[in-house]
């Protein structure tokens, strides 16, 4: 057990090893089809008319940035595994949504993998955001980075990565995701409408107050921008 120089392989392992769930994801991802981002781009742009599937771009934008309303999640740069799994869950009924369920059902497994691969690759811009109150942001930051012992809540970053950067492939980024979307999903878990990842996310959502939900949602929407501003001020 002597301390040895850490080689490149080991470094890669540090990153993966800190979040064991990933391993599970890797194992699962190996069995799902590899998507083709070029074919996926066509689905994003034009949909699959014969299957009644509209273009993803209608709501999520061709860049994956969606519109800034937060009614639709940002997809750009989310892992292909995660996007593919959510589509499969919509198709299989584990996750349900009036718009997404028929779309996911209309797509075949290959098309789902293609479109997931496409949105994983695109670098959609981050849209301008209105300010949020600093008190709300601070409370969100507290929950995200530290947690709340009195509620039995660990930090979001344990799984979602430092600053909510994500732990691909299994765990989505939250940083830069739209606040209203995050808040909506947490409330869906809380009330039992969203059921995938029940053991982890429903459990946690049930411990969050309305105020907590608004705070983490605001924090993660804004955190990238906060980072950017901090960087700018150093220049």
């Amino acid at each position, binding site marked *: 057990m002597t301390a040895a120089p850490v*080689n490149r392989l080991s470094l890669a392992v540090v990153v993966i*090893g*800190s*979040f*064991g*769930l990933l*391993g599970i994801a890797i194992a699962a991802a190996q069995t799902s089809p590899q998507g083709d981002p070029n074919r996926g781009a066509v689905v994003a742009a034009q949909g699959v008319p014969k299957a009644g599937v509209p273009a993803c771009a209608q709501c999520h934008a061709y860049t994956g940035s969606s519109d800034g309303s937060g009614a639709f999640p940002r997809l750009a740069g989310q892992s292909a595994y995660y996007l593919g799994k959510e589509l499969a869950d919509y198709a299989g009924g584990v996750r349900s949504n009036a718009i997404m369920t028929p779309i996911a059902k209309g797509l075949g497994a290959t098309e789902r993998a293609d479109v997931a691969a496409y949105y994983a690759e695109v670098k959609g811009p981050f849209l301008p955001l209105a300010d949020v109150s600093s008190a709300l942001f601070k409370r969100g930051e507290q929950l995200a980075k530290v947690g709340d012992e009195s509620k039995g809540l660990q930090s979001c*970053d344990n799984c979602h990565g430092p600053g909510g950067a994500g732990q691909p492939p299994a765990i989505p980024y939250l940083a830069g995701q739209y606040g209203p979307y995050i808040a909506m999903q947490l409330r869906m878990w809380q009330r039992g409408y969203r059921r995938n990842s029940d*053991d982890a996310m429903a*459990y946690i959502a049930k411990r969050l107050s309305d105020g907590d939900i608004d705070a983490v949602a605001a924090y993660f929407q804004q955190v990238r921008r906060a980072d950017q501003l901090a960087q700018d001020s150093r220049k």
Partner: protein
Amino acid sequence: MATRLKPVDAVTIGVGLTGSLAALELAKAGLKIVGLERGAARFTVPDFQSPPIHDELRFSIRKAMMQDNTKVAVTFRNDSNETALPIRRWESFLPGQGLGGSFVHWNGQSFRAQVADFIYKTHLEKRYGKKFLEACGPELIFQDWGVTYDELEPHFDRFEYLCGVSGTAGNIKGKIQPGGNPFEAPRAREYPNPALKEPYFGAIFRKGAESLGYHPYPQPSSNLSRPYTNPEGLSLQRCVFCGFCERYACEHFAKASPQTVILPALLNRPNYELRTNCEVLRINLDSTRRKATGVTYVDGAGNEFEQPAELVLITAFPLNNVRTLLLSGIGEPYDPRTGKGVVGRCYTYQTTGGPTVFMDESVNVNPFMSSGAPGTMIDDFGGDNFDHSGLDFVGGQYVGSIMTNGRPIEFHPTPPGTPTWGLEWKKAVARHYNHTILIQQHGTSTASRLNYLDLDPTYKDAWGQPLLRMTFDFPDNDIRMSQYIANKVVAIGRAMGGKTVVRGGTRKPYSTTFYQSTHNAGGAVMGDDPTTSAVNRYMQSWDVPNVFSLGASAFPQNITYNYSITIGALTYWALDAIKNQYLKAPGPLVQK
């Protein structure tokens, strides 16, 4: 001069597993209790959150959670003719410090002791005869515990439900259950939670072991398989197999620990007071030396206090329990020349070590995807589960593929013949990192007249008190036992498809320079005879009845398994006696 504080009903020396569990029981009974802990207060939030909690250098290598051995070390020698030296770098065992004790950075491997363990002497003599035991080694000591498995069963059950143990029962009320350990002692009901999912290395072990006719089962674990609320109303979450469990605290509220399953129900009680950064120096006795008046401790600022108490519970981890008794002059110290005396006698450890199985490159083990207590094992060679007649030893080991991590500093297996540094080493690590399975052998440690604990004549702690001195080597009986099993396990490794199987097994001399186990046991053992035990069957001092020494220091010899579930059961058992008998009529619960 020590400041004398207001008297309380009870103090615990240490607030780890036994200290918090005992205090909760007494607090419910209405007693005013003070918990004195030498380390700092710490909680899941904010202290155990990642990324800082996954700092391998800090926690695994530099042992951030362990007893501060710049202040209080333990000295060690193999044999009483040698001069013991202080262990300045913990390796072999890792006693904890800080609120929650070692039960914060433990793995969560959750076993009950066997029926025969508690009646070891009676059982072995009946099955093999006194001559057989004599032939195993004239220096060996065999003793019964004074308490039986049947008496403890309800307490085992209660402690498992407190922790939310995840497992598959093998024996419910004498009926063997499919999928569980057919050798386990009968339990009243199922585990509170289903077993963890089987990792790939566990599945490969299962296949290999099954093909040889053994009985694989999932390791029972206090890393939880699903969200769970325990009978104290405290909630745990599901383990995410983060790979940083043993030597680390859980950031997910997913591992049973004082912080998750006991303390929240204790700390909010007005009759409980926790004082951290308080080092207890000794238990004070009155002039008769038959009654403790309380304890003396030093706080973080160096001020000395006397805390009077009616009842003193030593809950400081076995090594510190024994040292506290010795420093306080409670019980007769063991003398290895005459074999007389009880405090320090029957110090035992654990026999560990197993083979390394190097697999083909097509087998991706993903060792980083693991928890503290995952995997698949067999108990065919545990304790006295197999017939020893015709063999030249007693005892046994469990065997399993229960890998806990693939952490980069600690885990880089290479086959024999690989250079220990340089390009060839790096290549070998890259080749084998994800294609190697470790198998653990883990088992009994027989007590011996030659192994004991006493106070060191030379070395002192930061407060000028003698350090504990450990004199220990594995009895030859235990080496023969472990090597016999090592042969069997090599065959399992081959049946798993191992390309190269490096044989394991415990070897002499015992060395403190690599990790084996933190299951230090004995030194203040329980029993029915005051000439061979320091505490009675309720872990009450024979000599000073208002002192109880709780924990594995009470084990007359060490069992096959990781011992905390048995410690929890014994603690509940003792506390039952304290609440229902002792408090009504303070005094000896068993007459000398």
